[in-house]
């Protein structure tokens, strides 16, 4: 928290808002599609609306330091409400709108929210349900009045009426005093981490955290007030707060909100944002759509698409990175842009994207290269709620699929002896609200925060590479590093491989279980005239084994170049006779592999992998969808895969 303040003194959101009203008064702050038409608010209008609501909230009895929950999907009124809350000296707490009442009860009780601003009847109903358990809750405000007319309005207010009351009120002076009392050190927002383990934790972020991080990251990408973004990810997520609040206020760019969740794709195309964030699965879904639609297209279009995608794959990323490319290729690429890439980007709504980010999980290199090759500047970043998002990000010209970039300016990174990544930055959170114990175990006295991820910094490029969750990373019997997820991800990038589980902790070599992707492999079998009667039969087909062997060996080759991880090459593998399934306890409900359970359940197969036998007979209990149990018997073939000599000298590149 030692980083220098912006020289301009723009250290709080009220000040940034005032600056934006002055500098970009007639520029657009928000857009939202409603009734089929894009409605917009200029910064001047937003400033007026924010002040009116803030005064209304004060008139309603809001005190400085109160927590106000904001629940709803991305809507300009709710974004403006967050700033109103800040202007009135209170702290906004955005919540996930799809949370059930139970989860909300915990969070609302934990932060002691006196006020709730809810989007519509659905959210109001949830809060009403748990109101009895929340003694601190006093007033509920709502945006969309539909269905709420007949509710008891003693503690319920229409947002519009509170705004009108604010306009009519005379607490201008009080509002100004409260806004002026804020500083960079005062709390900007409290965000609850989704909490995969245990209760959600309230991450307290100060104005300095948000604004300095927004400033630094916006400068890396040269974001200005002419940019625009589509806000469609949950408001309770730190990323949305940084993009749609932090960076939007710092640079003054326009935040557009879709009409409804289902129209996002369509609205994306209409708005054509210049700055865009999406998780890898979004890009994956988009590419699948494109592929399917191309298969239905006329022959000539298919040929044109294939030819020019070949050109793009060869030279597209280099052109994007500004590297030298031959004249003919450049001309061909330009023609391709006219005929294929341009129209394609337009259909996807990504024509104007100047800066695109993906994060959250590993992205397949083919997927990543596809978008970059057609000229979309897709990059990766690495972040956490506790860091106000940005820890590292990829600058233009240094973009790769397997790294997450260099530290954002102001961020320091340290790797401890176990390989876990630590960081220290102006964005580091203040504390977990009412949880000193967790705060102390996450953030040390010098401000270093543990990420829980293992990784390393590439010596020649300075880019950070994330390998795995730190708790999953182990050692093999010869002491070399073992990171199963890293290898599994590489395997899963092949569309044919649905799931992979790698074993090797404490052993002399790695072996793997593989699952076929029935859709992809089935499709491949159909095209290659391979007949099969069941999942089991297809999975055991020699040609499927041959194909998977190629995949495994290709992965081994790439791992061999990976220096410290070169010991993780897969020596032997087996294609499982059943799909790993959450119903059988092998995966979590969110489709994550449960290693411990798989190790126990398939111990006979693991033994066979390590004792060198060619095949193994196994019986596995399965649970059918109606809850009945049955047994699958199979003799599985075990294959050896070629491994490459470990050669740390050619590490990286």
């Amino acid at each position, binding site marked *: 928290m030692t980083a220098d303040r912006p020289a301009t003194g723009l250290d709080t959101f009220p000040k940034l808002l005032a600056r934006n009203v002055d500098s970009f008064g007639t520029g657009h702050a928000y857009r939202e599609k409603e009734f089929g038409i894009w409605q917009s608010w200029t910064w001047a209008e937003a400033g007026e609306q924010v002040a009116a609501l803030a005064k209304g909230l004060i008139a309603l009895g809001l005190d400085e330091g109160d927590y106000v929950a904001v629940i709803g999907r991305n809507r300009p009124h709710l974004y403006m409400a967050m700033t109103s809350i800040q202007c009135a000296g209170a702290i906004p707490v955005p919540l996930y709108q799809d949370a059930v009442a139970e989860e909300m009860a915990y969070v609302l009780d934990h932060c002691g929210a006196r006020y709730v601003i809810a989007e519509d009847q659905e959210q109001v109903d949830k809060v009403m349900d748990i109101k009895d358990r929340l003694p601190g809750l006093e007033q509920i405000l709502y945006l969309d009045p*539909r269905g709420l*007319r007949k509710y008891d309005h003693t503690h319920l207010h229409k947002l519009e009426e509170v705004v009108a009351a604010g306009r009519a009120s005379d607490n201008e002076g009080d509002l100004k005093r409260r806004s002026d009392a804020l500083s960079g050190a005062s709390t900007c927002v409290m965000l609850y981490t989704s909490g995969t383990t245990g209760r959600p934790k309230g991450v307290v972020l100060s104005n300095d955290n948000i604004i300095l991080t927004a400033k630094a990251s916006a400068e890396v990408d040269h974001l200005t007030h002419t940019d625009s973004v589509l806000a469609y990810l949950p408001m309770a997520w730190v990323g949305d707060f940084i993009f749609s609040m932090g960076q939007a206020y710092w640079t003054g760019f326009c935040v557009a909100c879709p009409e409804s969740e289902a129209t996002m794709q369509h609205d994306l195309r209409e708005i054509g944002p210049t700055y865009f964030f999406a998780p890898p699965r979004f890009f994956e879904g988009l590419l699948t759509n494109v592929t399917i639609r191309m298969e239905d297209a006329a022959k000539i279009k298919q040929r044109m698409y294939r030819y020019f995608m070949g050109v793009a794959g060869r030279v597209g990323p280099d052109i994007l990175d500004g590297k030298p490319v031959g004249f003919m290729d450049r001309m061909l690429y330009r023609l391709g842009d006219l005929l294929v890439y341009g129209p394609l980007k337009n259909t996807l709504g990504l024509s104007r994207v100047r800066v695109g980010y993906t994060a959250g999980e590993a992205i397949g290199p083919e997927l990543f290269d596809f978008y970059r090759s057609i000229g979309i500047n897709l990059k990766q970043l690495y972040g956490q709620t506790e860091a106000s998002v940005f820890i590292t990000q990829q600058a233009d010209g240094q973009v790769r699929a397997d790294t997450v970039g260099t530290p954002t300016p102001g961020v320091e990174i340290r790797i401890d002896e176990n390989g876990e990544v630590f960081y220290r930055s102006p964005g580091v959170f203040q504390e977990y609200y009412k949880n000193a114990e967790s705060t102390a175990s996450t953030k040390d006295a010098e401000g270093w925060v543990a990420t829980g991820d293992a990784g390393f910094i590439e010596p020649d490029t300075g880019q950070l590479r994330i390998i795995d969750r730190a708790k999953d990373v182990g050692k093999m019997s010869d002491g070399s590093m073992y990171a199963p997820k890293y290898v599994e991800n590489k395997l899963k990038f092949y569309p044919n491989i649905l799931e992979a589980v790698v074993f090797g902790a404490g052993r002399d070599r790695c072996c793997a279980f593989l699952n076929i992707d029935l859709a992809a492999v089935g499709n491949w079998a159909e095209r290659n005239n391979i007949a099969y009667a069941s999942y089991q039969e297809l999975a055991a087909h020699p040609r499927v084994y041959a194909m998977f062997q190629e995949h495994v060996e290709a992965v081994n080759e790439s791992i061999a170049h990976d220096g410290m991880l070169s010991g993780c090459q897969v020596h032997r593998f087996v294609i499982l006779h059943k799909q790993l399934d959450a119903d059988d306890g092998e995966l979590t409900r969110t489709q994550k592999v449960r290693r411990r359970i798989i190790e126990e359940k398939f111990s006979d197969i693991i033994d066979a992998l390590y004792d060198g036998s060619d095949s193994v007979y196994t019986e596995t209990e399965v649970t059918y969808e109606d809850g009945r149990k049955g047994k699958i018997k199979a003799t599985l073939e075990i294959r050896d895969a070629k491994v490459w000599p470990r050669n740390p000298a050619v590490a990286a590149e």
Partner: protein
Amino acid sequence: MSLDSSQTMTTPDGRTIGGVVMEMKHITLRFGGVVAIKDISFDIREGEIRAIIGPNGAGKSSMLNVINGFYHPQEGEVWFEGKRRKPMKPHEIAHQGIARTFQNIALFKGMTTLDNIMTGRFTRMKAPWWQQAIWAGPAEREEVANREVVEKIIDFLEIQAIRKTPVGRLPYGLQKRVELGRALGAEPRLLLLDEPMAGMNVEEKEDMSRFILDVNDEFGTTIALIEHDMGVVMDISDRVVVMDYGAKIGDGTPDEVRNNPAVIDAYLGVAHD
């Protein structure tokens, strides 16, 4: 619930039910020798949700067709908004302020959701056809105003994402919703729904129930509906008419009807000695 025709009342959930808007007096409808409706009388009050229930073949849909004027009963009188109804031509039926949906969806399959709902506005368009053809002044303003109404309906029914989708490509539940949208487009004073929830799953039924209640609440539209799902009927309607073999066997609030022995017999069967 016995009221005289001009009295108003307030329901337990705070809605106001006004005077009688439609009254059926001793209606008998015959098709040749088949008597579809036998001497039925009941009324519909302003702002209420009135359900007509009964086993298959009880004459419910025929009753609905009598209400909207498509069938003209051989005996009895239909009074709508204080006037006795005479036989009407189809366009007169359309203009009287009663809109309906159909048991088997009757949308224009090749047209988009937007266009389908727009057709619901047809009776509200006043500009002459030649102005509409050349998109001249008043016609243009009228179209914009109509589009605004349609967009509010789209927003209301939460079907923004299918605004430009041909309805033939939509799943059944959504088509039902679009059909409701088209009926709303006519801004009816009385809305007739013929089995709005037939063939829907539980979730779709819940959605549709909410929309019906919201239409009634937001626009104050009087609604008469036929429905088989007893749970839904008892939950959302203010008063229920029960028909069996063309005759009325019960009439009253859901609770009254539920405890009516004749209704129980019609639904559960009765032991014949």
